[in-house]
């Protein structure tokens, strides 16, 4: 029998005899006859080759080859071959949660190293072993802040990813939280507005750096004011930018989250991705998700285990810090391998190259009649432009010329129909950037 089942007809008979029943049907007697499926119209099984043909046909219906300037929190970075090679080892990808540490030191040590890398990137003291993705990590951070402060008001800056903000609202719809959102001013946090909203009932203020418009900022002043009122600061970050940018740890952020896709994961049409979370040591017991800790074994040898499990659902049930059961270990490993390959210098260089190329495009676009580049703040590898035409129209025309030109903002920000965000990674060559500029010029200056 194929389909990955090993039992032969003879073995089936032998096993049924041991069990003392005459057929496999006898094993299902608890399922009453009236529960028989009313329908089970699946296609007939096919060979591996036939399924490959079918899926290959679907792959061909995805038209790739657009030169991408798309970002929005998800970036087209190059993934070195060694990354995929390592995560394709069956010992990693066909294992499960390390419940038995003696036969899972590979996963456990890798997660410890991952946590350490996230701390190195963010400048924070402790990290968990990862969460589903950046969007859900932000929600977990907000809940964590509410648990720590025992307050229920959350202030969100308008520069935080609009999708993440929507996710947070969905999850808290049935709970008693109060939200306030402050629109950005000149592309960055409106300090005056945030100041007005912070009070002694506020659990947290949520910021993003670089923000959705690409602006980079130093939030130290906001953080200082928040802390004076006992308000925690949550910041969502883009990890590649931290090769250069001031870390949330240096600014005094309390909980850092982010989308780790840019650390060696493919774009994958939205997943699997990597949510990361780091915080101050004093908050570790309020943090959701798996945490790996160092200890020694009975012979005094250094080793790693899942720790502080008393926070988790399999022990605490309804009193747990979250309902999360697992992390995304393989994606965490993937980012760790990527960061190890790049190393201290490599990450810095990568960040600098992204910054240079984006700035080069930004300067070129400024020359075009009909484009206004928002210059009020420095940016990293993504920035906002406004145009003399509707951004969705422009993007549509750019697609015909072979470019995924950027993401129009009108969908999420009313009144910004002529705006789009444009991202440039190390993969975009000078030639591609220049032909992008040429194409956009033709569309706008017609």
């Amino acid at each position, binding site marked *: 029998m194929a*389909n990955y089942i090993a*039992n032969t007809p003879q073995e089936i008979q032998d096993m049924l005899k041991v*069990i003392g029943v005459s057929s496999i049907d006898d094993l299902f007697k608890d*399922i009453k006859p009236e529960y028989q499926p*009313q329908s089970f119209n699946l*296609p007939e099984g096919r060979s*591996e080759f036939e*399924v490959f043909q079918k*899926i*290959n046909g679907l*792959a061909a219906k*995805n038209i*790739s080859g657009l030169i991408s300037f798309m970002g929005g929190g*998800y970036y087209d970075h190059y993934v070195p071959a060694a990354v*995929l*090679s390592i995560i394709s080892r*069956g010992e*990693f*990808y066909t*294992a*499960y949660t390390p419940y*038995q540490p003696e*036969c899972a*030191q*590979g996963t456990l040590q890798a997660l*410890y190293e991952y946590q*350490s890398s996230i701390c*190195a*990137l963010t400048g924070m003291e*402790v990290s968990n072993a990862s969460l*589903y993705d950046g*969007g*859900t990590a932000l929600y977990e951070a907000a809940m964590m802040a509410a648990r720590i402060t025992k307050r229920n008001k959350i202030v969100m800056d308008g520069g935080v990813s609009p999708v993440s903000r929507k996710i947070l609202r969905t999850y808290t719809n049935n709970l008693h939280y109060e939200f306030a959102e402050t629109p950005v001013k000149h592309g960055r946090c409106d300090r005056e507005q945030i100041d007005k909203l912070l009070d002694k009932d506020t659990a947290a203020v949520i910021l993003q750096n670089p923000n959705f418009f690409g602006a980079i900022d130093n939030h130290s002043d906001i953080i200082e004011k928040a802390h004076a009122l006992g308000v925690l600061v949550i910041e969502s970050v883009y990890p590649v930018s931290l090769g250069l940018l001031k870390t949330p740890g*240096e600014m005094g952020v309390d909980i850092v989250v982010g989308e780790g896709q840019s650390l060696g994961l*493919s*774009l*994958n049409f939205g997943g*699997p991705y990597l949510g990361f979370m780091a915080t101050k*040591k004093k908050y570790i017991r309020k943090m959701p998700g798996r945490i790996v*800790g160092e200890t*020694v074994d009975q012979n005094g040898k250094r080793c790693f*285990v899942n*720790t502080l499990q008393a926070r988790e659902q399999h022990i605490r*049930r309804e009193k747990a810090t979250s*309902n*999360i*059961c*697992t992390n995304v*270990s393989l994606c965490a490993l993937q980012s760790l391998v990527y*960061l*190890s390959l*790049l*190393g201290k210098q*490599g990450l810095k260089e990568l960040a600098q*190259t992204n*910054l240079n190329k984006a700035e080069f495009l930004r300067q070129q676009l400024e020359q075009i009649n009909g484009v206004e580049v928002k210059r009020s703040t420095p940016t990293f590898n993504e920035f906002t432009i406004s145009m003399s035409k509707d951004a969705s129209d422009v993007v*549509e025309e750019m697609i015909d010329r072979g470019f*995924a030109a950027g993401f*129009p903002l009108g969908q999420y920000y009313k009144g910004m129909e002529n705006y789009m965000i444009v991202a440039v990674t*190390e993969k975009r060559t000078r030639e591609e950037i220049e032909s992008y500029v040429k194409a956009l010029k033709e569309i706008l200056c017609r």
Partner: protein
Amino acid sequence: MSLIFEKSVEGRQGYRNPPSDVPLCVELPDNLKRATDCPLPEVSELDVVRHFTRLSQQNYSVDTQFYPLGSCTMKYNPKFTERVAQMPEFTDIHPLLPQLRQGEKFTQGSLQVLYEMEQLLSEITGMDHFTMQPLAGAHGELTGVMMMAAYHKAKGNKKKYIIVPDSSHGTNPATSAIAGYETLTVPSDASGSVNFEELKKHVTDETAGMMLTSPNTHGVFNSDIDKIVDLIHSVDGLMYYDGANLNAVMGRCRPGDIGFDAIHVNVHKTFATPHGGGGPGAGPVGVNKKLEPFLPISRVEMKADGMFFLNYDYPDSIGYIASFYGNFGIILRAYAYILMLGKQGIKDVSDHAVLNANYIRERLKSVYDLAYDRICMHECVFSALKQSSRGVQALDIAKYLIDQNIHPPTVYFPLTVKEAMMIEPTETESKETMDRFIDVMIQADKLSQSNPEEFHFMPRTMPISRPDETKAAREIQTNYFNQL
């Protein structure tokens, strides 16, 4: 083994970045820059490859060992599904592309995979609609319970409680709590099913619904499940099917036909996508017509001309529950698996999962106490009480198995069984693998009689043995850089 950071040598590089080929180098102002370089390791590519290859060799995995971890369905993950998941036409698609005007044209293949998976999973489970968005089983539970809450809100129902059996996974009560409900726990009866008389006492007009795993974590299919469904529905409560154990019943019954209103499917269990050392998985959620209006957005639909598109126009939807369309790479693997197995193959999966579990149950029942002495479904639960009276506990037997090159079963779960050992062989294991496991379990019992102290030094064959978990929790050390 030393950490990757401890292998670092100043000036060494493992990867060469593409050059910055533009004629400028931007200097950011100091107040926006980090004070010191990020202290990542400085290692060569070979250092990296060797380090992680060696780490991998310290893991037990399905590819290398029998892994009968109960409740986790550690079946073989076909290599073919990995191959399709790595096709660049799928991996290189930016998730915002279909949200551009005309952008859907460029992602028809991926959208079709999601669309067809909705049909396939609906047919397997008897539900009317599916969302592929939930990123894990527990995430599916939360999505399902939030839809239940939206249903009650829309009807003006005043509901307060979600009922879970004492045998449930911890995620069920945890999910109910974070979705804003209080949890009521009902005990099991002598046969391992929900105690129906006790359940009746808990059901009131304030019952929002019940979360039920079927077969449950005792490996028992409740033959009176229709009575439970009717009881909960009689107060306009909703039935949530935790699909953790769907691997037992495919082609034998469908939750939708029995009357369940919502279900999540753990594709990393039932549909053979890899567990990844603890994720990423995926937890698609199916619903019947009652809950359909509340499904999360976006939904993947087909226009009259056969074009697939994302529909956000559902005013009653609970909204966004994930950033995009789910763990696409995982859903694609499950899709390939279902297409290969087909109608008969999917049914065979459950038949053989149940056959294998009963074979182990029958052969070990004279040596270890069964929690429930009856035909089981895809897993069987033993208790090591007899062995523990000799000083050998379930955990000790687990360590013995590790020395025998076998991954231990789940121990100490379900919480309802003392010294529990939960064994799930899955359909992909051969009789000789199970026979060897059975022999090893019998030897462990013999050793518990002859030399129980011996267990405390196990495992002996692994790089480490019996970590001090108390020390780990007390002297919290979770970051290499905190030591420096």
